[in-house]
Each structure stands twice: as C-alpha cells, then as structure tokens.
C-alpha cells in the first residue's frame, strides 16, 4: 500500500502524484516504471513511468494524463488516500553514458518519462538539446523543469498557440542536418516516435524510443506487451521499455495499443471523462 503524499494538477488533464514507496525510491533508475492498481479486487493494473524519486523522503513521483477509467480513478485521489498496489521499479533502466550531444524529444505526456532521462543525460556530462511538443499550449507540462536542464530548448505546438507552430520532427530534422548529434531519445505517442525514427534514420543518428504498450503484470508473464523489434518478439516490460527506434515495428504496436478500444470506449466516453476531470477541478 502506498500513501498519496501530494497531488498537483499540471494541465487540463495531467496530474502529478507523489507516492510513498521507499523501496522503489531507493532502487529506481531513469527509464524505469511502476505498475499501479487503485484497489486489489476490480481495478486495472496500469504502467506509469517514475518521473522522479526522493530517496531520503522515500517517495516517487508519477505524472499521468487522464485518458480512461483507471487514470481517472488515480486523478480522483487526494493526499492521504492510498493506492493499494504499487509494483516496481520495472523495466531496464536507460543506458546513461557520456556520448556527446543528445537530442531529447518529448510529445504530450511523453515529456514526463523523458524528464528523468534528460536529467541523467545532462548529469553524465552530455550536451542536451530538448524539443517539446503538444497539441496546444495548455497541454504542455514540465516546461520550466525541462528548460532548466537544456543547453538548447525548443517548444512546438500543433496549433501555434505557443512556441513554434510545427511538429517536433521539423526542428529534429534541422538539428540532424546541422550535424554533431550523437544520440536521440524520443518519447511520446507511438505515431510521433515512429516519425522521429524516420527523421533520424537517414542521418544515421542512433535513436531510442520508450514504448507504451498495453501491460498486465509487468513481469514477463502475460506477453500482452509484446512488440516486434528487429524482427524478433520482445516484451516491453522486461526487455524494454526502451528500444532502438529504427528497429521497432511501430505500425503493429499502434494496432495493438488499440486492442481493447471498443471495451474502453464503453467504459469512458471522452465527454464523460472530461466532465469528470472538470468536476475534480471545480471541487478545488
């Protein structure tokens, strides 16, 4: 059982929870995630990246977007409430080393998992370029935190309401053209990661993507998180979540992410969700 120590709303539908989890806080490394379950009997188990951890305080931070029933359940918690089950840290930590210049590309909620990686890359002595994107201004999260890490910082919005009016792949391409990039890390919606991979491929820039497949156990037991990487079947929860983006079959991954779409839609019409989130806000 993990107590919620703090809850913050970061944007319209993005929330941050600080959870009591001393064992996880002391073992976790950048790139790893946890599986949370609000209650043992009927709740779903959902994976969320460990966005930050405080070993001394024995706490971890998760940042999530309300996209369905389980994330809504989490958003409804307040400081003092408990999350019955928190398992982690899971997955392989990101391989952090000094390579030179690293471009970190984050889209939407993907900025949350990207933050600890960018931080670690910087700490290892790399020059870090950060490109952040969102559909519109009010969906941007962690801008100040990311800006503080970056040696070069670019923000894009799809609708031009803030920063450049572009997709993140546009500045990524320009940077690659200038040369001197040693590594790229892309985290965001599958479609964004796919196009980031296509952008860096011609330049031969090694690129990692962190995959957000459907998961159940997170221990390698169910195979629900399987993806095809370099023609081989890999389990994201134990072999990943990071893989060489140039080898990932994103098209199949996107298909599989939609596996339970009909069931999920039944559980939460978009309008009902937004209404619930708005109600949360009003209560404040």
């Amino acid at each position, binding site marked *: 059982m993990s107590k919620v120590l703090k809850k913050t709303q970061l944007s319209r539908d993005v929330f941050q929870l600080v959870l009591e989890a001393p*064992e996880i806080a002391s073992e976790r490394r950048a790139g790893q995630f946890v599986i949370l379950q609000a209650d043992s009997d009927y709740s*779903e*188990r959902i994976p969320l990246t460990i966005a930050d951890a405080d070993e001394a305080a024995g706490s971890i931070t998760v940042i999530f977007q309300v996209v369905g029933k389980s994330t809504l359940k989490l958003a409804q918690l307040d400081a003092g409430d408990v999350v019955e089950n928190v*398992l*982690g*840290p899971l997955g392989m930590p990101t391989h952090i080393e000094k390579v030179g210049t690293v471009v970190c590309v984050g889209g939407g909620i993907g900025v949350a998992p990207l933050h600890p990686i960018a931080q670690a890359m910087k700490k290892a002595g790399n020059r870090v370029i950060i490109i952040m994107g969102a559909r519109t201004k009010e969906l941007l999260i962690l801008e100040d935190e990311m800006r503080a890490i970056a040696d070069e910082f670019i923000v894009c919005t799809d609708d031009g309401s803030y920063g450049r009016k572009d997709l993140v792949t546009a500045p990524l391409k320009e940077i690659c053209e200038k040369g001197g990039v040693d590594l790229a890390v892309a985290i965001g919606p599958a479609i964004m990661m796919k196009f980031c991979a296509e952008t860096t491929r011609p330049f031969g820039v090694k690129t990692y993507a962190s995959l957000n497949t459907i998961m159940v156990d997170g221990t390698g037991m*169910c*195979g629900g998180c399987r993806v095809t990487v370099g023609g081989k*079947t890999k389990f994201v929860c134990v072999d990943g979540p990071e893989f060489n983006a140039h080898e990932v079959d994103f098209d199949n991954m996107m298909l599989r992410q939609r596996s339970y779409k009909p069931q999920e839609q039944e*559980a939460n019409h978009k309008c009902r969700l937004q209404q619930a989130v708005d109600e949360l806000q009003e209560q404040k």
Partner: protein
Amino acid sequence: MSYIPADKLREEAQELINKIDFSALKPKDRLAIPMQEMPAQEPSVRAKNIQEVAIGYFEEQVKLEAERCLQCKNAPCIKGCPVAIDIPGFIKAAAEGDYQKSVNIIKRNSMLPAICGRVCPQETQCMAECTVGKSLKDMEKSVAIGRIERFVADWEREQGRMSLPEIAPATGKKVAIIGSGPAGLTAAADVRKAGHEVVLFEAFHKLGGVMIYGIPEFRLPKVILDKEIDNLLSMGVTIKKNFLVGRTRKLSDLIEKDGFDAAFVGTGAGLPNFMNIEGEGLVGVSSANEFLTRANLMKAYTPDKADTPIFTGKKTAVVGGGNVAMDAARMALRVGAEEVYVIYRRTEKEMPARREEIAHAKEEGITFLFLTNPKRIIGDKDGKVTGIECLKYELGEPDDSGRRKPVEIKGSEFILEMDSVIMALGNSSNPLISQTTPEINVNRWGNILADGDQKTSMERVYAGGDIVLGAATVILAMGEGRKAAESINKLLAE
C-alpha cells in the same frame, strides 16, 4: 463419459449402500462396486457461470469408493504419488468414516490436500498404478483417489477445525521465500515451523501463483486457496506483495545486505511461448496467461465490476492441448464466446491435459480439432483477427518423448473464421532472477539448476517448482518446496 445428474448419482449410491454388507467384502466384491462418478453442475448451466464445476462426492459415494480399495500390501499407488502419501491408509480411514484421521494421514506428506485433490493429474500418477484398474483392465476405473482426498480435505475445512502446526521457538534466523505458488507456500510453511523468521516475496498483488492467476475459479475456488493462505499468515509468515525480486531488490542484496540467512526461489514458469507464425501480433491474439490473468486475477468474469478489459469474441480458437488450453477454452465460454475450438496437432490420446478436464470441456460443447496446427492468423485492414489458416497433420515415427511425431500433410490448408485466438503452447521459465543474479546457473531452457537437496550454484540459495522443472504440476512444485525447506532447515541448524 456422459453427464449424469448429481441427484441421480446420490440416489444410486444410497441404494447400493443398503444392498452391501461391508463387514464381509472379498476382493471380488470390492471390484464389483462401480466407480463413483464425480457429481457436477449441469453442462449447459455451468458453461455460463463461474462456480465450481465438480461439486464433490456425497458421503455415500465416499464410502463406496473407499471400499473399492483392496488395501494392497505392496501399495503400488504410493509409488505413483510424487510425495508418497500413504494412500491405502487414508482411504481406509475414510471408509471407516474417520475423516479427520484420513486427512491427517494425507497432511503428513501434502500441505494442500483440498487443492491437490482437485488439480492433480491422478490418472498419470497414483491411479496409473492402482491394482483395481489393472484388475478391471481399465485404468480409468482405478480407485478415484483424488476424489476421496478432496472430500476429506473439504470436510475438515467445512468443520472449521483446521489445526495450525506447532512452531518451534524462534531461532533468530531469517529466510526469504520468493514466489507464492505451491512451491513457495510449502517452503514458507515448513521453514516457519522450524522457528525461523520467514518473509514471502510475491510480485503480484495476490498470493497463490498459477493457482490464483491461471487455474480458473470453476476448477479451484479461490476461497480454498485463501484458507490455506490465512493459515500461513496465522503461522506468522511475513508477506511482501508487489515485490519483484531482481528489480525491487536483487537476490544478492537480500542475502548480503538485508540479513537473510537463506533464500528459496520458487518463481515458476511464467514466460508464455508463442508459435512465431504470421499474424500473432494481430489484435485478438493473446497468450493463455494474459487471457486467464485478465479473467481470473483481474476478475474480468464480472464485467459489471472489473475495470480490466477482455476479448469476448464470438468465435475463439485455442491452440494447444494441455491443462492451460482446457482452462482457456472453458473460460472463453464463460466470458461470452459462442463457439470455442481447441486446435491440437496430435490426437486426443497424446493430450497432456487431465482426462477430467477434456471430458468436461466436451460436455460443455467445445469443439476439438485434432491433428491440426495453425499456419498463420489472418486479419482485416484494422489488424483485427478474422480467421486462422490451419494445416492437417498425421502421426509419424515416435520422437524423443516417445510420442508419435505429428507431420504435416502437404496442401491440406484450410481456413476457419475466428475473431480471437488464444495461444496455450506452454510456458518457459521466467528469466528475471537468473538475468539479475549471474551466480545462479541455469540450463539451456533457462531452468535453474538445483541438486538433489534443491540447492543452486549460489551459496545459501535453493530453488524448486516450475522454475527448476519447467512447466510441471502443483504436487511436484509442492514436493520440491518441501524438500528445499528441509535442506534450509538443516543448513540453519548447523
């Protein structure tokens, strides 16, 4: 086997009991008593509910079945039992109506009789050696040892008299048990009895291993498992759920830094195999582990309450022929599939599933396609499963396992329309512990190598159950957990 209503079985047993003079039974009279069928829910009813299929013997039936036993001097059945239960001993006590004595005899060797009575493959173990079956020239007519075992264990639980074992005075030693399947649960109990402090680590949010996430409610009601776990708790075992050894903490850290004097690894064979054929990545294809976990552990069989989604296709194909395949197929019916097909590349005779499960599956209306194997899975433009292309097979020469090898018949391809496919091809061992603990040696399939005392290549670390044996059985896992506990207790006594 065709379905006989429970009431009728009871009536028949009552009539028979009145006719028999039990004081003067000769072996041939015993052989003449008909084998007592297991009463079960009506097939068309049970296929749509999650309650236990087999109801359990009526008292009259236990009496008759126990009287069928010849009390053989050499007791060949004991040799067939992986944990050498005194079978004629407990059957005799049951025949005499002393159920407490009967269950006590079983418990000398098995910690989980209510579970083993339900899930052991008796037909390949004790019953395969039974003199009654041999005399009747039909091994399916052997004494129904497991059904008697189940009856006496259930009787004890229902009396609310389950006694707790004695616990030796505290030794100050601390033991880590990793995994809460039958191997881990048994090891935890036996080590605790010796007075050591025991911490049981489990990755999931519930205890029981495959018994909780894999074997369905309709075959093993979870209240039975919960009772066993309650007992463990009242023995003073500390339980740490949501703890993945290797990630939350490394095994070597438990031993070197956290003060554990020994550890037992019982992490099971939880790595689902796939066929690596075209279309396995389509939407609607899942492993049996995923399907059953969603259904059992995440309770997707109560769709009005559970948040976890599950495929409720109308036509489901299950590929495989073991218990896992039978469970997945029967669960698919219960979560809404209208037609379920089991696709197996050999014949019914070679199927590794328990006979009773196969019979039950047939009664419930599941279609079996033998000598058939998938070639590829077909999908539509949205990547959803629409069908499965299969090949017909025939049996050829025997292979290493002694079973005749299936060989494909060229050009025999045919397509079945399906909207979901469940792969039940068995499990390999979970590599997490061995990957994060290089000191532990494994064989080429990733199973941990353990010696006759269940000791691994790492000092103070023991292992048992499916992680050592590969996908095996509950009773073998329990037996290894027990043996490992013995070794650990010996080590700590030094």
